[in-house]
């Protein structure tokens, strides 16, 4: 039982957040301009060029010495950053932005297909292949939470809903420094990332 990755898409089909845990096949960093700033440090374009490159949001005016920093994405917390495992890691051959588009495309197509076949307003919940399982949870506001786990995992919709209720509402929706629906900025911030990380690592099937 393993949890591999979490994508959050907004209602404009844009990937606004990404996080992963022990993935052995990794995407290449996103192409320049292919991904919004503030989605994920690990897959942003030019991640090797230094942590501050590509991030010039108004949030940068917050200095960490001026009190509590609520949302800042220049520095990744050391225990939160995902180190590239030196061995056994292969590439998917896809840039992250391409991969995110494929994930969104699959989710959207399946969602429409399930609605069409059922003839009702029925939600697509998951699919599985021989090596992984994809789960979808969609909020009424059109945010789509997509999680990839190993194929034996049971329903993860409750988990995704919990991430929405606890992490997302608290650290994204109620965070005045996050521009939601902006189409130019992701929703990444340290509090949300660590809340998700803590919650996922505490799950019985995290492994």
């Amino acid at each position, binding site marked *: 039982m393993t949890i591999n990755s979490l994508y959050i898409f907004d209602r404009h089909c844009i990937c606004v957040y990404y996080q992963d845990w022990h993935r052995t096949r990794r995407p290449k960093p996103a192409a320049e301009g292919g991904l919004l700033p503030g989605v994920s440090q690990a897959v942003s374009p030019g991640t090797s060029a230094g942590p501050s490159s590509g991030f010039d949001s108004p949030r940068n005016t917050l200095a960490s010495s001026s009190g509590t920093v609520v949302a800042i994405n220049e520095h990744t917390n050391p225990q939160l950053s995902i180190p590239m495992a030196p061995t056994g890691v292969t590439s998917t051959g896809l840039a992250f932005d391409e991969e995110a588009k494929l994930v969104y495309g*699959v989710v959207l197509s399946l969602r429409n*297909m399930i609605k*069409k076949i059922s003839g*009702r307003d029925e939600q697509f919940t998951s699919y599985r*292949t021989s090596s*992984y399982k994809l789960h979808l949870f969609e909020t009424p506001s059109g945010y789509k939470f997509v999680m990839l786990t190993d194929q034996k995992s049971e329903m993860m919709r409750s988990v995704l809903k919990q991430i929405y209720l606890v992490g997302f509402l608290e650290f994204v929706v109620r965070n005045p420094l996050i521009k939601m629906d902006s189409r130019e900025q992701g929703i990444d911030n340290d509090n949300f990332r660590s809340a998700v990380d803590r919650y996922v690592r505490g799950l019985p099937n995290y492994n």
Partner: protein
Amino acid sequence: MAIFGLWIINKAGGLVYQRNFAEGLAQLTSNENLVLAGTLHGIHAITARLSPMGPSSGAQVIEGETFKMTIFLTATGTKFVLLTSLNETIAEILLQRIYEAYADAVMKNPFHTPEMPIRSDGFDTRVTAIIGTG
């Protein structure tokens, strides 16, 4: 426990056989079914590329809230799709048996053109028997 329908999709993504069994899902026109089968064919190819851990097959089971689609891909690229309720546990076994019937009643039929729509009373009867006893 309900079996709603069966699709057979050829290796080019065309729907060559479609049958409804139990009621419960929308009644779609043959054109709508063709479009959905083509979409499924494309999605199936993409899902194999999204694996986070090692190589992967395409989607095998796709679940909604009240029904699921079990997909069986043969070595030659033909896809057998069974639409059933969520608690149907023998969908894979049924697909295996439908594949056997397909090999016997369709592939061995000298009047059948490969990759073309299946019009065979023998196959229809065999499928009815499998689903009926399933």
